[in-house]
């Protein structure tokens, strides 16, 4: 048999690929894409100036001579390792003396538990955290699907300092810089150990752990607040998606210019690393740029893509902080912003131990005909609110009755809530049976419209309703006898 080397070379010469190496259809549009990054330092600096950035002189080294920051990235970068750079930016976002506030982080707890007013064991002691000890954290990576071959090349670390919001960034311009990169991040997180992120629980933080393991660094442990899930609970019904960018424009009133879509970021860095040397001389735009299907024409001022990524990351951090403050003020003031879902907001309020305020919110929404709010309200009264009892205390009975009778019985949940009421409060099994049967009908109609992968969940629901129906039938039979 021919040597492996010879045969590999043959495959290479012939340009043959195995079927499995053919491009995925989903990625085909980008397969030939190669980004030529342009290098024009002065413009980079101009861009920085245009954004009105001011370097925080305390953190920034005075030296900005060429060579101390990675090629093409504009001013403000300081080299801290062979391939590792940092930059500190004072944002225009400020909170005044609110930075001294302590935040009740229980509001970010999972809905099901928070909504019922339970206090999770984890938070039983330390649920008040100072705003000043929080790090707003976001990583830019070489891949979006994770795995141990995906690395982070840019970290945004935001924090409040004397009422001002500062964004520090750590960047590497090649793989070997990773060790410096990670240890810098870890030292930041050590100082402000509560990490606020957007989808960090599923992505950024596991990735950071992975990178630490790969580099033999101790795996960090810290408290993590992920705003994605609360944001989804509050706004997913009102918005097309709950990406940070969508929330930004819908809730925070922030508009970005020349933002780069997140999906392109990995390839931009990989191309930047590969072409780092050549693009210094070859600054021409290539037609292949347009393979990305994204219009860059607005940036013909030598638009170094990498710079856009850096800006993107910085803006993400600022928006993250703004979103965080918005959520907190919503909960503190029991006030709805951006047509947030009242029920979810009430859960957040309740999770902080302010049950009365939560009930007020729900009552108000109930008056306006919010069925979901009414159901939740009925549940609160049924359980005797924070008393957690199974049968309502006398003082809540009347309220419970009133609330349940206001339910319209159009949704599954309201039917079930009514069935519970009739069965347990009034012992009216006939009415309870009717409500349960209606719930079943609703499920059947839903089943017809659902894709098959949701059917399993539906069938579980069905099973539980079926149980209720047969129990009620049994009780009716017994009563007849």
């Amino acid at each position, binding site marked *: 048999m021919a040597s492996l080397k010879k045969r*590999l070379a043959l*495959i290479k010469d012939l340009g043959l690929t195995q079927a*499995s190496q053919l491009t*995925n259809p989903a990625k085909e549009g980008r397969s030939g894409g190669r980004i030529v990054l342009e290098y024009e330092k002065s413009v980079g600096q101009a861009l920085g100036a245009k954004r009105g950035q001011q370097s925080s002189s305390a953190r920034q080294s005075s030296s900005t001579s060429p060579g101390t920051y990675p090629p093409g990235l504009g001013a403000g970068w300081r080299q801290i390792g062979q391939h590792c750079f940092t930059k500190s930016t004072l944002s225009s976002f400020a909170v005044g003396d609110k930075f001294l506030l302590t935040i009740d982080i229980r509001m970010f707890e999972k809905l099901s538990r928070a909504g019922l007013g339970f206090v999770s064991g984890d938070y039983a002691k330390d649920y008040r955290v100072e705003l000043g000890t929080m790090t707003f954290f976001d990583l830019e990576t070489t891949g979006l*699907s994770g795995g141990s071959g995906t690395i982070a090349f840019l970290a945004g670390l935001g924090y409040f300092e004397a009422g001002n919001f500062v964004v520090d960034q750590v960047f590497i311009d090649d793989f070997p810089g990773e060790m410096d990169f990670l240890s810098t991040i870890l030292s930041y997180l050590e100082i402000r150990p509560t990490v606020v992120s957007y989808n960090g629980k599923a992505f950024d933080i596991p990735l950071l752990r992975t990178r630490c393991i790969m580099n033999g660094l101790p795996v960090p442990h810290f408290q993590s607040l992920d705003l994605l899930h609360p944001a989804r609970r509050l706004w997913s019904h009102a918005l097309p998606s709950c990406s940070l960018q969508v929330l930004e424009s819908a809730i925070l009133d922030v508009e970005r210019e020349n933002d780069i879509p997140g999906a392109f970021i990995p390839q931009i860095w990989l191309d930047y*690393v*590969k072409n780092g040397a050549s693009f210094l001389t070859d600054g021409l735009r290539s037609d292949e740029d347009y393979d990305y299907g994204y219009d860059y024409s607005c940036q013909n001022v030598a638009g170094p893509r990498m710079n856009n990524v850096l800006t993107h990351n910085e803006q993400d951090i600022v928006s993250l902080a703004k979103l965080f403050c918005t959520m907190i003020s919503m909960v503190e003031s029991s006030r709805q912003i951006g047509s947030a879902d009242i029920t979810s907001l009430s859960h957040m309020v309740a999770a902080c131990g302010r049950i009365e305020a939560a009930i007020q919110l729900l009552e108000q929404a109930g008056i306006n005909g919010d069925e979901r709010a009414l159901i939740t309200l009925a549940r609160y009264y049924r359980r005797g609110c924070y008393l957690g009892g199974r049968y309502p205390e006398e003082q809540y009975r009347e309220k419970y009755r009133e609330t349940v009778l206001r339910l319209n019985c159009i949704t599954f949940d309201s039917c079930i809530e009514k069935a519970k009421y009739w069965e347990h409060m009034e012992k009216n099994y006939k009415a309870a049976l009717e409500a349960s049967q209606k719930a079943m009908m609703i499920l059947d109609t839903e089943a017809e419209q659902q894709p098959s992968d949701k059917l399993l969940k539906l069938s579980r629901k069905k099973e539980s309703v079926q149980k209720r129906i047969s129990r009620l039938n049994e009780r009716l039979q017994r009563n007849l006898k």
Partner: protein
Amino acid sequence: MCKVYPMIRESATDFFPQFEEWLSGRGEIAWKHHIPSTSPEFVALPQDLSPTLQGALEKQGISQLYSHQSQSYGLARQNRDFVVVTPTASGKTLCYNLPVVQTLLEDPGARALYLFPTKALSQDQQAELNEIALGGSLPVKIQTYDGDTPASLRTVARTSARIVITNPDMLHSGILPNHTKWVSFFSKLRYVVVDEMHSYRGVFGSHVGNVLRRLQRIAAFYGAHPAFIFCSATIANPQELASSLIEKPVALIDHNGAGLGDKTLFFFNPALVDPVQGIRRSSATESEQIALYLLKNGVKTILFARSRLQVELIASYITESLANPYNENNGIKVSPYRSGLLPSERRAIEKGLREGSIQGVVSTNALELGIDIGGLDAAVIAGYPGNSASFWQQAGRAGRRGGASLAVFVASSAPLDQYFATHPEFFLSQGAEAGHVDLDNPYVFSDHIKCAAFEIPFADKECFGASSEEDTQEALALLESEGVLRHTAARWYWSSDGYPSEAISLRSATSDNVVIVDTTRGAYSVIGEMDRVSAKELLFDKAVYIHLGRQYMVKQLDIEKRLCLVERSDVEYWTDSITKTDLEVLTEDVSEPLSYGDDDGGSVFRCVLGDVLVRTQAEKYKKLRFYTSENVGYGDISLPPEEMQTRALSLVFEGGSRAGKLLSAEDPATCAAILVGVGRLFTSLAPVFLLCDPKDLGISERIRDPHFGWPTLYLYDKYPGGTGLAEALSEKLMPLLKASLERIESCPCADGCPSCIGVDLVSTFVPMAVQSGQQSPSGQPSQRQDSVNYTINFKQRIATFLRGSLA
């Protein structure tokens, strides 16, 4: 483990004579083989076995071990790598469960990984392990980790499971690329158990060997060096295969200390319908009838058919025959079981078999491996499954728990089956096949280098597994030039936003499966999936696709989107595609004239071993009527061709060579007929000598090859890059030629039949000769097409040609 099942078998034993009588009335029992029961060899439980584990065993009625179990325990406890080969139902699982669980009990941090080739096997194994562990309430958490595992249990598997059960595919695409989430698992990994080792041969084995290289590389990264335990029921070269999979020497345990159950094997040859043309009743139909007879007599039966299509057809025919609305089909339920069913559908069938709500099952080889479905009394095998390991596995599906059982091999008219009909000694002596892997197949190798680089960057001078530094670095350089790696600071970094293992499938040449979507009446539900290459041959536009007995017609196959839209249909036919193959020689690595040294220095023909480019394209399809398989029409297929580079052995019949002279004496049509006939004999007989599946070997013939300029027969590996088949063939050519000659000489047919050179040589090649106005092959003027004359001629000429090619 010897569980005692209720003696439901006694009735089946009594029933055997009646069955034999019935069977011999139906066709010919070519031969019968009785395997008597043997008695077991027992050894006391190991001294160091913990009392809790001892208690758990006693609860299951185990107070002593079979000798091979005891030997395994000893080797495993010394952390030796070893392989156990004993027949089905000899208690192999205890060979590894016992030492592993004992070690896990002693060392609370220790972990073990169990690898099974299929998901169904993993599930079964977990059930069995739970019985030991939980039955004896041992503090050892066991978790299956595969595509069906819900997210919540995945975390359990990663963090706290002591034994993780998975399959190579999941290890490859789910676990290894995310090894940092498995730190506690990998850093204390003590044992890797590889069961059903015989599944890991050929391409799949070569992939799995590379996955094991990656596994060991990652374990080493975390400081662990696990011991490997391999198990198999049937393999001729266990030690060789196991040590090539992990590239280290392994110890061997092959003495079976367990007793064997009594088994009778019938070799059934369906009745000859047309003795002249050598046509027999279809093996599928006969199997179906035999299974039906057994089922009606209360014998739980499994029928193995050879393709997904056959499975569906046979299952639906049986169900139709049983149809009786008044007694719920006689209380008998039969289900198809094949790949392409959704996991939940498969689980339901397995459960039905186990619990007895299903009495019969029609399966492809998805069930042949040791899935414990229990209680089956008879196995009916429709046609030779391609290798003897599969055959014995399938036959072993019946009567696993001791007691008498029967297996019926229903011969098809394929030459191999007919060869076996007359050569029982050959069939029985061939025993298990050997398995070979080529971890350095360039495609497989570079695929896994890619995955390995993603997992942990390679260092300069690092070798992947036992491959040479040169090969590893060369492959890395190749990948860098493709742009997926970056070489800097003496390391090779993964430098792409992709996730390499996602695009690499261990099972077939291509991983991008086509999803099959039922769109009947505006619905949109996924009913199955199929690999791209098969999809081009089975799911072309207007193809009839049968799924769980339901018929669908393909509305649209979108290869780009990997999507196939189908709709329920009710036509009277099924479809079969006709593919065309083109070949191009890329290299001639070895080119040697074959000579026997007994003549005057002349050669017989030339053998060329090298790389070729194979282009296949499905061009047309046939419509075949159900039941009769009569051809009721054709249609065109317009799909892009598949291209691959692979290894081939070309037999070049040069003008001066002995075989070449024989061919050049013939007219082109006869020459073509001879090559086609020889090709057919080779395709059907080669699997026995090459230890491969018939589907793995491609054959193509040219009467005047554009590359060599002479009549040429190409025998190529159907897997990209080759898996060593072409090389093995060059060594086994003589026995193959001999067997082919023997087959054609011993075939009783007059003029070619499906059991030798096929029935259509005459109809295909005689008109060709006539049309071109040439002399007929027999040398007489071709005024009338006397097919008998020609046919005898073809068969004889092929025999003469083969004889001339032999010493």
